[in-house]
């Protein structure tokens, strides 16, 4: 029976369920001091003076430093636009770090920060792309002369196609600013002693952080160790080079003591980089049958107060994926990146692809409105057929590998009663006791499994591979070491499943180690749904390599040919003669003993390291539907059902895969209905705590009905595509299409996210778009 594809419960859980997890704040070496930041209360201001006198005298405070005291290089970032580790002459967003306090306790550190007096000269702030790009807008960098730091125009706007088309539609979309807000905030602990530096960090990529910290400090990598212990969620938000990871080591060196930073939530809300915050102008040209003739996308990416390298890449991914699952012969893409006096923008679960899916899926529904055509029929007119792969698109980045988009829709319709729902929708309109009912679809496709050679180097990583080392112990148990860096995905379990399958060693005798640059030679880290698609493939290939060597040893000992050796259930035996067998323990022991080995084999052969590469991204896809009820009197929208059909290729562990989808879907629903990180006209955040930033709780979300189809990934032998971000990519348009569907009969064609009750009520009053 195959363990790949089985619902195996997790190896990670016993520790986490008994309070034995080790998160950064749980770790406290002797002598640990505590760090806290003084953060800007202004969105855009010159710093005239920083008075630390009172703070220095505060009981328990060990030291207070500003940029002037430390003379630090800028943080790793976009050349010419790097962010200072501590603000120097100017601050560019509320929450920017200005000074740092270290104290004997968290409590004293908090007291110390309250006593630092910052003298600001307030400047006018820009808090939206419109404001930032207006004539005479205040500039975040005077010397740039503009807040637009990059602009990539289209090569061909296909205007002739639009001019000749039977129908055209222009749509303006806003992909609302969100913050990932994992329940554990950023945290780090730096211990810089005579033997070197150790940094514990709540981060998604330990080697990546190690490489950057050591370069930034100017110390050799061999003396810099980064450990990512248990990490309480990441969602792409824990891969950014924010000041704490660099300042803590510096202060640890100065003080010769460990320095720990546990971010408060209020700090995290403004200082952990945000996601989405993209506006789009979309033009579509289509014919009477609903076939799209041309698509034009101009994406404006809000970058926040400092241009982050990952943030720069968001509209690149969005525009690359704008055509979605559809055959669109003429696609024109353009984008720009604009600074504003807000928290910088970087990746958040889906990272550029939710923005793409939202725009194309809303566009499809706009076609359905214009032609009065069923939205599923519009999609059927345009799907890329199942036999078209590999499918090159308008973008070099995106050559889709496989998919059955129409099949996913068919399966979706199988698990829901679409006809019944449509009848109910009509009946409800005239029944005062019943809510308005909306049904929304999303046929989505995303780019994952980052990525082919060069792809992650473009985001500043060392490479695009992932490292897997498998080492068989003398007793036949196995240890996997990987650069993959899980923070909830269950990688310890899935990798052990894959290894168990291909090694023939019991799942309970396989451990997976990650998150320590001292024990894992190299690694890239976890982002872009790559752990299984890249790392998992590495586990399989490393397992097969080891098995090859093991078979040679067994063959030698059993006097057979290596081709005739089979491996199963902890034994290696001669095909057809099961009595001629050796246990893994025996073979493993022999692997260390020269006298037991074939002539051409050295001791230590059951140990292999692979830097697994993949030739292409992977392209998970699926079809989601949302059934939403809108209270006619209050405008309150509540999801009654979410139907989810995912195609992630091979599923390693259906329990874990389902969990990943649920989590992504929840965040997608949250973006569509609840969450928006917003600012007032002075750049003051208005949703800076969990009171006002509305992350849904259990009573606020529905249960999920799942289905599945499977088109294996042709670019890895596992056939796996990855699934971590799918839910957050596919969900927002399903929800918003449902919301608009519910009020279509009033002539409404658009409502922006988040679809708050007040917005919907205003639409019901007749303020339709």
């Amino acid at each position, binding site marked *: 029976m195959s363990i790949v594809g089985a619902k*195996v*419960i*997790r*190896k990670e*859980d*016993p*520790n*986490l*369920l*008994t*309070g*034995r*997890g*080790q*998160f950064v*704040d*749980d770790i*406290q070496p002797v002598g640990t001091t505590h760090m806290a930041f003084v953060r800007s209360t202004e969105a855009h201001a010159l710093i005239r003076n920083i008075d630390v006198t009172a703070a220095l005298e505060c009981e328990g405070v060990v030291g207070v430093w500003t940029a002037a005291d430390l003379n630090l290089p800028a943080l790793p970032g976009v050349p010419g636009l790097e962010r200072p580790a501590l603000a120097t002459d100017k601050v560019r967003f509320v929450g920017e770090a200005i000074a740092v306090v270290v104290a004997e306790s*968290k*409590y004293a550190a908090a007291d110390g920060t309250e006593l630092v007096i910052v003298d600001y000269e307030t400047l006018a702030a820009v808090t939206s792309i419109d404001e930032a790009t207006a004539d005479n807008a205040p500039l975040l960098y005077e010397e740039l002369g503009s807040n637009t730091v990059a602009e990539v125009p289209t090569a061909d706007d296909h205007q002739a196609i639009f001019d000749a088309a039977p129908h055209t539609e222009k749509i303006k979309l806003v992909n609302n600013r969100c913050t*990932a*807000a*994992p*329940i*554990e*905030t950023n945290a780090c602990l730096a211990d810089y002693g005579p033997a070197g530096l150790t940094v514990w960090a709540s981060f998604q990529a330990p080697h990546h952080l190690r490489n950057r910290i050591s370069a930034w400090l100017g110390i050799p990598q061999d003396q810099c160790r980064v450990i990512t212990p*248990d*990490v*309480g*969620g*990441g969602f792409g938000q824990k891969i950014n080079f924010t000041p704490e990871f660099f300042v803590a080591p510096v202060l640890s060196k100065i003080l010769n003591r460990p320095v720990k930073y*546990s971010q408060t*939530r*209020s700090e995290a809300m403004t200082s952990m980089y945000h996601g989405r915050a993209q506006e789009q102008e979309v033009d579509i040209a289509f014919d009477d049958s609903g076939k799209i003739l041309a698509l034009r996308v101009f994406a404006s990416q809000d970058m926040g107060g400092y241009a982050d390298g990952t943030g720069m890449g968001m509209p690149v991914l969005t525009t690359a994926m704008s055509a979605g699952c559809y055959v669109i012969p003429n696609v024109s893409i353009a984008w720009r990146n604009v600074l504003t006096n807000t928290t910088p923008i970087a990746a958040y679960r889906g990272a550029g692809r939710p923005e793409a899916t939202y725009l194309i899926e809303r566009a499809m529904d706009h076609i359905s409105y214009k032609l009065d055509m069923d939205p599923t029929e519009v999609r059927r007119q345009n799907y890329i057929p199942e036999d078209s792969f590999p499918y090159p698109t308008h973008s070099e980045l995106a050559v889709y590998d496989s998919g059955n988009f129409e099949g996913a829709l068919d399966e979706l319709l199988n698990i829901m009663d679409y006809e019944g729902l449509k009848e109910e929708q009509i009946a409800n309109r005239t029944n005062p006791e019943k809510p308005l009912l909306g049904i929304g679809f999303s046929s989505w496709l995303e780019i994952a499994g980052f990525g082919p050679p060069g792809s992650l180097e473009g985001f500043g990583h060392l490479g695009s591979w992932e490292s897997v080392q498998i080492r068989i112990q003398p007793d036949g148990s196995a240890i996997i070491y990987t650069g993959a860096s899980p*923070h*909830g*995905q*269950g990688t310890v379990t899935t990798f052990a499943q894959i290894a168990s399958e291909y090694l023939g060693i019991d*799942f*309970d005798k396989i451990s997976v180690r990650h998150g320590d640059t001292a024990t894992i030679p190299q690694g890239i880290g976890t982002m872009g749904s790559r752990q299984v698609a890249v790392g998992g493939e590495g586990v399989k290939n490393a397992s097969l390599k080891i098995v090859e060597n093991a078979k040679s040893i067994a063959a030698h000992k059993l006097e057979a040919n290596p081709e005739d050796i089979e491996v199963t259930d902890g034994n290696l035996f001669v095909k057809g003669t099961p009595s001629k067998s050796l246990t893994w323990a025996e073979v493993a022991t022999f692997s260390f003993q020269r006298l037991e080995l074939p002539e051409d084999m050295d001791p230590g052969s059951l140990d292999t390291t692979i830097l697994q590469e993949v030739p292409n991204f992977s392209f998970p896809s699926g079809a989601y539907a949302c059934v939403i009820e809108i209270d006619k009197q209050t405008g309150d929208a509540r999801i009654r059902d979410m139907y989810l059909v995912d195609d992630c290729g091979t599923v390693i562990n259906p329990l*874990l895969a*389902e*969990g*990943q989808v*649920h*989590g*992504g*879907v*929840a*965040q997608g629903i949250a973006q569509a209905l609840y969450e928006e990180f917003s600012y007032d006209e002075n750049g003051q955040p208005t949703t800076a*705590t*969990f*009171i006002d930033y509305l*992350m849904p*709780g*259990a*009573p606020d*979300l529905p*249960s*999920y009905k799942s289905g599945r189809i499977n088109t294996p990934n042709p670019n890895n032998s596992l056939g796996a595509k990855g699934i971590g971000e799918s839910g957050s990519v596919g969900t927002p348009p399903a929800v918003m299409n449902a919301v608009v569907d519910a009020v279509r009969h009033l002539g409404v064609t658009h409502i922006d996210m988040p679809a708050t009750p007040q917005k919907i009520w205003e639409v019901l009053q007749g303020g339709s778009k």
Partner: protein
Amino acid sequence: MSYPTSMTINGTNYAKSVDPRTLLVHFIREECGLTGTHVGCDTSNCGACTVLLDGDAVKSCTVLAVQANNHKVTTVEGLASEDGAFSPVQEGFRQEHGLQCGYCTPGMLMAATALLKEIPKPTEEEIRQNLEGNLCRCTGYEMIVRSVQWAADNPDGVPVAIGESS
């Protein structure tokens, strides 16, 4: 100012002199070294810090340690039995994948434990309602609901040894 504070946590007495502004969650984590209880926010919303105070679920970030003076606290470390057997709620979360990153989990387990003491056979709606004070970012809650249902259906739990898979 230092105030003598003593409480029983998971059956063990802890007596310390603390700054009275010390939050119970910090007392538990830092004075007593029980780091299973977590901090997730600073506005009493997320519930990651939930413990039982005299058997009632409370947010330990919104209780001063001195308010728990002479009271009984139960944290996640106190859920399993002496020989390590999981409580039904712990086992339910393991069986039904009610946790991913594990950070909100201790608070969820305590809130769910309190819920089941009050309502041994809750409906799905009752489970969701009674977990309204506990935020999770990873699971989307469905599998947490299934986990609590498992515990309700298996009040004696299943003594599966740690390390065994099912």
